[in-house]
C-alpha cells in the first residue's frame, strides 16, 4: 500500500523529479512549517460510526486504536437531545438540598480547588446491546464501540461536598445536565464521597463538547449514563428521584419477574480488538490484541483461546494496569491456515470471571441483556483468512 502511494506520488511529480533523482541521487523537498494545530495523517481514516434513530450515538473504532487511551475526538457519544453549546462564562455548578451551605461554583472556582486526574473507562450500559442482532460481517466498533478511555482531570466531588457539608439524612444526589434534555440521574452519596470527580478536562485539554463541555460528572467504573454530561446541578436528598433514565431505561428485567434497578457498575469485560472483521489474515505469526476492564477494580488476568474454548492461554497484560480502566492485553499467535474461533475472557482482582452470554441468559434471561451484556465475544477465522463476528451462546 505504502509502496503504491510512493510510486503514485513519484509519477505525479513528473519527469523533473526523475531527472533530478538521476543526477543527485536523493533530493528531498521541504515540508510545510509548524502549524498551530496538529492533524491526523491524511492516510489515516478513523471515524466513529453513527447510530440510532435520532443519531444519538457515535461508536468508537476500537479495532483501529492502540494502547489504552481513546483520542478525545473518537470517544464514543451518547446523548439524548443533542450537544449543547455552552459558554464557560455562563455555566455554573449548583450544589444544594440537604447541605449546610448551598454553593454556586463557576468554572474558575472549580479550577482553584485541588485537582485530580484519573485514567478510567466510560462505558454505556447498552454497549453490546446488538450482540445477538449483528451478522458475521460486523466490525467490533458496531457491537462494542460504546466504551472509551480518557485521562480525566477535575476536582473530587468529596472536596466540594466537604465545602457544602452534608446533612445527616443525605443519601442520594440528583445530577442534572445542562443539555436540552436536562438529563437527570440519582447517585448514591457513598459513591459521590468515594471517587466521583467533577471533570473539566479530558486528555489534557478542556472536555470536548460532545463529552460534556465544560463539566462532566465522572463516576469511575459506573455506567456512562450516570456520568452526567454538561452537569449544572447537584441536589442532595434522602431518596432517589426515580427519573426516567433509572426506571423506564437503564434497568434490567430478570427471569424472576423483578426489575434490577441502579445496576450502576460495569461488569468485567474483554474484547479482542485485532484480528476482527474486516481483518484479512495470512498464515504465520500475528499478535492477538485486545482490551479488558472491570468496574470493580483492576484486571488480574485475560485468557485467550485460539480453538473456540478448548484451551485457554494467559495473555500478557500491558502496563499500566489501572483500576476501572481499559487494560491492553496481547498474545502472539501462529495461524496455521485452518478455520478456528478466537475468544477472550477477563478476570478481575475480585476473582470475577467474564461470563459467556449463555451464562448471562441462564441467570437473567435474554431480555435483560439490553443493558449490561458483558458476555464473551467470538471471532471466527475462516480458512481463506477472513475474520467474522460470531455470537457465542
Amino acid at each position, binding site marked *: 500500500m505504502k509502496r503504491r502511494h510512493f510510486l503514485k506520488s513519484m509519477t505525479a511529480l513528473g519527469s523533473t523529479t526523475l531527472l533530478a533523482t538521476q543526477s543527485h541521487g536523493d533530493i528531498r523537498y521541504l515540508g510545510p512549517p509548524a502549524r498551530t494545530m496538529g492533524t491526523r495523517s491524511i492516510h489515516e481514516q478513523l471515524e466513529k460510526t453513527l447510530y440510532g434513530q435520532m443519531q444519538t450515538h457515535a461508536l468508537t473504532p476500537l479495532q483501529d486504536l492502540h494502547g489504552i487511551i481513546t483520542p478525545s475526538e473518537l470517544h464514543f457519544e451518547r446523548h439524548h437531545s443533542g450537544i449543547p453549546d455552552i459558554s464557560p462564562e455562563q455555566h455554573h455548578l449548583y450544589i444544594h438540598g440537604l447541605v449546610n451551605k448551598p454553593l454556586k461554583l463557576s468554572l474558575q472556582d472549580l479550577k482553584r480547588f485541588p485537582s485530580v486526574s484519573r485514567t478510567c473507562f466510560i462505558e454505556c450500559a447498552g454497549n453490546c446491546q446488538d450482540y445477538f442482532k449483528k451478522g458475521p460481517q460486523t466490525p467490533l466498533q458496531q457491537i462494542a464501540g460504546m466504551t472509551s478511555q480518557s485521562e480525566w482531570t477535575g476536582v473530587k466531588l468529596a472536596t466540594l461536598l466537604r465545602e457544602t457539608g452534608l446533612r445527616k439524612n443525605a443519601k442520594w444526589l440528583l445530577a442534572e445536565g445542562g443539555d436540552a434534555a*436536562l438529563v437527570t440521574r440519582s447517585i448514591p452519596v457513598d459513591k459521590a464521597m468515594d471517587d466521583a470527580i467533577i471533570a473539566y478536562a479530558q486528555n489534557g485539554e478542556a472536555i470536548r463538547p460532545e463529552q460534556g463541555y465544560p463539566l462532566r460528572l465522572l463516576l469511575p467504573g459506573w455506567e456512562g449514563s450516570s456520568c452526567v454530561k454538561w452537569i449544572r446541578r447537584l441536589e442532595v436528598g434522602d431518596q432517589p*428521584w426515580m427519573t426516567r433514565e433509572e426506571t423506564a431505561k437503564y434497568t434490567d*428485567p430478570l427471569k424472576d419477574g423483578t426489575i434490577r434497578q441502579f445496576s450502576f457498575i460495569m461488569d468485567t469485560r474483554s474484547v479482542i480488538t485485532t484480528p476482527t472483521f474486516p481483518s484479512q489474515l495470512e498464515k504465520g505469526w500475528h499478535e492477538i490484541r485486545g482490551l479488558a476492564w472491570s468496574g470493580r477494580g483492576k484486571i488480574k488476568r485475560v485468557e485467550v483461546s485460539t480453538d473456540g474454548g478448548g484451551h485457554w492461554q494467559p495473555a500478557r497484560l500491558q502496563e499500566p494496569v489501572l483500576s476501572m480502566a481499559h487494560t491492553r492485553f496481547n498474545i502472539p499467535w501462529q495461524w496455521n491456515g485452518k478455520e478456528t474461533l478466537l475468544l477472550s475472557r477477563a478476570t478481575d482482582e475480585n476473582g470475577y470471571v467474564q461470563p459467556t452470554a449463555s451464562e448471562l441468559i441462564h441467570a437473567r434471561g435474554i431480555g435483560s441483556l439490553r443493558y449490561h451484556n458483558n458476555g464473551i465475544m467470538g471471532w471466527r477465522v475462516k480458512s481463506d483468512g477472513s475474520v467474522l463476528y460470531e455470537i457465542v451462546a
Partner: protein
Amino acid sequence: MPAKLFRTVRQTSGLFILMNALLCPAQTLAQNERQAHEHPESFGLGTSPSNSELAAMDTAIRPDGKGLPDGQGSAKEGQSIYESKCQQCHGPKGEGGINDKLVGTLPEGDFPFAEKGAPKKTIGNYWPYATTLFDYIRRTMPYTLPGSLTNDETYSLTAYLLYLNKLIPQDKVLNAQSLPEITMPAQHRFKNDNRTQTDKIL
C-alpha cells in the same frame, strides 16, 4: 496521603533529609508536609446561590410528589395537545410512531420482559411511577422544543398517556395531590441491585 508524600521526599532527596535532620526534627518536616497537603476548613470559593436561582432550576419531581407544581389537567385536554405536539414521533394514541411506544398493557401477573421476543416496554407495562412521566415530559419533551410546555399542558399530557394505558379514567383530573396517588402496575417489581458476591455477579 501526606505521609506517603513525605516518604517519597525522603527517598528521593538524601541531602534534603540530612539538612533537615540538622536543622529540624523529622517530625516537624512531616508536619509541614501534612499541613501543605491538607485541606483548609474551607477554600472559600464560590458564592451562595439565591433562592430564586435555585427555584428556577429545581424542577425535579419525586415519587412522593415533592416538586410538583400548581396546575391541573385531564386526558380530555391532553388528547389535543398530544395530537399537535407528540403524535408525529410517538404515533396516534401512543403507538406506531418512529420513536418510543408509549402505550401497552399486559394481563395482571404477566411480565415477559426477560424472555425472548418480549413486548416493548411502555408506560403502562413498565414505568414504576406516574410522577416520572410528569417530570420527563416537562423536562425533555417535545423533543425539538423541550421546556415549552406549561404545567397545565404537562398534567394534561400525563393524564392522556395514563388514560391510554387504561390506568385512569378519561375525566380524571391530575394535579399535585392526585398524581402521586396513582400506583403503576410494575412498581412492586423494581428492586435495588443487591448483588454482593464479587466473584460471581450475574
